[in-house]
């Protein structure tokens, strides 16, 4: 569908009504999900949604209105509503927040896809999940088995009054398995890959990479083994975190606090604020010298990889933490200008009906030079943890507590017994400054997070954090279980 005429109408209407700047984003989203659960297909769904969102800037105040009414009358009404809303905000404004974006682009972007998932017959997709789910049931103690697959396509066209026209076709794919074992007065879960499945930009190749069928029996056996495993001890230990857990640690303790809107108080009432205050830029030693965390929204297969963000800014790479030092933020046009910088294209919206806002994108901890197996070498008494089970962090992003599905004791450099219910806790900068080894590129992986919540109305974002396993010294372990 060509939206050029409707877009021009919307931008003209917004301008005539008093908008100094306006943009419109048409989006068609298709979401397909299959979930096998305990031997049956619990979900087989196919959802399509098409609509548009209009932003209008009036006297430094933004208004946003969205609708699925694609008639000319609907476009007129929605554009007028966006301006009306902006004016209502401007009337009570104590200061100006909004600025016109600095430059326009005319371009296209499409996610590289090696194999279109729709070329795989639906029956074959369902069969893969049923087989993987069945393989989880290794014991009568397996109470729940799940196997799922998500195929997402987003086709959008962005137009603005400064002349942008950006057309993008984004394809994202994910799948996973999970099982719950019940027995011994306990409930234990195992998930694979990682703690939420494997989610990336791309096509059927992402499903094949996950290798669900090949790993399901092992995951079921691990869940049952956890029921009888000893409780993870409480105390202070050196720990090694698996790659997917490091990914979540980056997400919660670096990705969110580095959102510049949060730093500026825009999320204060809900998601919270940030300890990465602007006056700390270039001064705060966030982590040890080996900790470098970068935004790369051009990363092949990154779940958040796109050509342009939802303000029409071209994707780039930029630093957040360089050799342990805080050097940057995730930014929008407005927030970047307020600190004398330019946007690094971190503005996204969940879909057409949501206002674009700063979102974590691909945020990567660069790999170290230690082979994974050598991370264990000089740990006398420690814990290795894998696959997240619970996560909580305060509204400044300092005091955190995470739990994992599995742990193993480490004795004299060797991985030992399986442990259940491992948890660890800390304060963000102390924790990252205790990082003394990061595994090398051979165990570095892009872990997608398809369910990141932020904003009001709440929006779900799709982010990725590339990470390898890493070692941290003197960490508090066993919190929540007596520690």
């Amino acid at each position: 569908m060509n939206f050029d005429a409707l877009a021009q109408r919307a931008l003209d209407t917004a301008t005539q009504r008093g908008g100094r700047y306006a943009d419109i984003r048409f989006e068609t989203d298709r979401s397909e999900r299959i979930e096998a659960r305990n031997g049956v297909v619990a979900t087989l769904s196919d959802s399509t949604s098409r609509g548009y969102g209009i932003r209008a800037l009036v006297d430094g105040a933004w208004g946003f209105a969205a609708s699925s009414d694609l008639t000319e009358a609907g476009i007129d009404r929605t554009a007028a509503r966006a301006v009306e809303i902006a004016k209502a905000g401007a009337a009570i404004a104590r200061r100006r927040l909004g600025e016109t974006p600095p430059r326009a682009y005319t371009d296209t972007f499409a996610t590289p896809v090696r194999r279109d998932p729709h070329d795989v017959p639906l029956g074959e997709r369902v069969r893969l999940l049923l087989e993987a789910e069945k393989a989880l049931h290794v014991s009568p103690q397996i109470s729940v088995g799940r196997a799922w697959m998500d195929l997402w396509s987003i086709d959008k066209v962005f137009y603005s009054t400064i002349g942008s026209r950006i057309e993008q076709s984004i394809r994202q794919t994910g799948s996973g398995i999970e099982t719950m074992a019940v027995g011994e007065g306990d409930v234990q879960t195992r998930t694979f890959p990682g703690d939420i499945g494997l989610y990336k930009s791309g096509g059927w190749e992402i499903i094949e990479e996950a290798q669900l069928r090949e790993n399901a029996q092992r995951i079921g056996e691990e869940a049952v083994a956890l029921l009888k495993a000893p409780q993870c001890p409480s105390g202070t230990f050196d720990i090694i975190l698996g790659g997917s857990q490091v990914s979540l640690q980056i997400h919660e303790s670096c990705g969110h606090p580095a959102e510049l809107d949060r730093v500026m108080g825009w999320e204060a009432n809900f998601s919270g604020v940030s300890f990465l205050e602007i006056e700390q830029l270039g001064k705060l030693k966030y982590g040890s010298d080996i900790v470098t965390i970068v935004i790369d929204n051009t990363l092949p297969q990154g779940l958040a990889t796109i050509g342009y963000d939802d303000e029409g800014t071209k994707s780039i790479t930029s630093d957040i933490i360089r050799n342990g030092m805080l050097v940057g933020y995730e930014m929008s046009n407005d927030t970047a200008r307020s600190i004398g910088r330019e946007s690094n294209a971190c503005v996204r919206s969940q879909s057409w009906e949501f206002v674009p806002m700063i979102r974590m994108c691909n945020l990567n901890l660069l790999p170290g030079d230690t082979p994974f197996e050598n991370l264990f070498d000089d740990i006398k008494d420690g814990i290795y943890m894998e696959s997240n089970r619970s996560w909580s962090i305060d509204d400044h992003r300092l005091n955190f507590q995470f739990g994992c599905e599995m742990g193993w004791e480490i004795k004299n450099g060797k991985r030992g017994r399986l442990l259940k219910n491992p948890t660890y806790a800390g304060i963000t900068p102390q924790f990252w400054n205790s990082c003394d080894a990061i595994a090398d590129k051979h165990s570095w992986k892009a872990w997608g997070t398809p369910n990141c919540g932020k904003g009001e109305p709440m929006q779900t974002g799709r982010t990725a954090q590339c990470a390898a396993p890493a070692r941290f010294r003197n960490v508090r372990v066993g919190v929540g279980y007596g520690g």
Partner: protein
Amino acid sequence: MDSARREALAQRVLALSGAGQTEVMVHSGRNELTRFTRNAVHQNVAESDVSVKVRAIVGKRTGVASTNLTDDTELRSLVQRAIEMAKLSPDDPGLPSMPAGGATQAPPGAYVRETATASPELRAQMCDTIFKAAEEHDYWCAGFVNTSEAGVTIVNSSGARASFDGTDAAVNVKMNATDSTGYAEGWDNDVTRLDAHAIGKLSSLKARDSAYPRGVEPGEWTVILEAAAFGELFTYLSDHFSAQSFDEGSSFLSDGLDKQYLGRNVTIVDDYAHPLSPGMPFDYEAQPTQRIGLVENGVAKNVVTDSYWANKLNRPNTGHALPAPNAYGPQALHLVVSPGSKSINELIAETKRGLLITRFWYIRTVDQKKAIVTGMTRDGTFLIENGEISGGVRNMRFNHSILEALNNCEFANALHRTGSYSYSVVVPAAKIEGFRFSSGTDF
């Protein structure tokens, strides 16, 4: 879109289906939210949409498709997609027939015209009132004013027909002082009953009274949780009342009903018609929702079901289905905890040393079976000494079992509606003994 047009659309789609059984849900909604920070509006949004969902059953196989494209071609395609998916799905022997529904009536106060027609100017005026409360103290505030309306119509080939229109409104304020913050909120189906001035003032007073916070030692404390804090904690029990969790072993009730799990002063019901939170009288299968007792004086009495789990467990269908497709099982979406006999001020006055907590943040389950959760205090945590609030304290992290809390608690005598984007409950404030904090913060 009004209910008559939704029903006409739903019947039109139903007539297109040749599946053995078909259910059509039409949802229309409008949501408008004005969000502010540092005493200025920074996000001001309005969104409206109409969507259609078809659940087709062919034999014992199900497919679900949805769209917001409502021309004839798209609707025919929608029905065909649902049927084709159903045909490719394997048999589910436990799949029951679609329920035939029944008569329902929306509870009084569920739909309020003033909320449905609230303008951006009205929300801006309410924000301005809150800004002035902040400026009186030289504070800055962040929060939102939200108004919304939603309509749901469900019809199916078993003859069920149900429609509901509801509205909702909310004000949420975090007030920020130099070294302290304060929070207040209001939730109501009727926007005219939300007093922005009072909410702004209360959040200011909390910020003022928690200034110069001191650190206290983690460990076991007597805590008084205001409704917003207790409601968020309590919500982490809601899945335990699902027949699915009950049957699969992850619920604390999985050892059986009619047992004493909680304190004798704990009574919990699911009530869609509670005057503080009147909601939809049927579920997403058009089955009338029962107002149901879940825990009476600490004894577990019921779990909630939908048609699938009622059939599987041979229990009555209580009308608690979520929208299809649903892998989470039936859910109690209108939980109400019965109040106690004393005011919150009396509970404070009876406390020799304890903490008054306004609000929690980022609660997550640590241990499902034991219902241990962790989370943080935020936006107004106070020390109580000798029955009086003596000042603010720095925030702390807790790790505690909700079951243990509900065996050592006393409730205040007033009920409040509280919630978030993901839940809405009606609860009193709660005094809990031996609540465990594991660490602190510098703020």
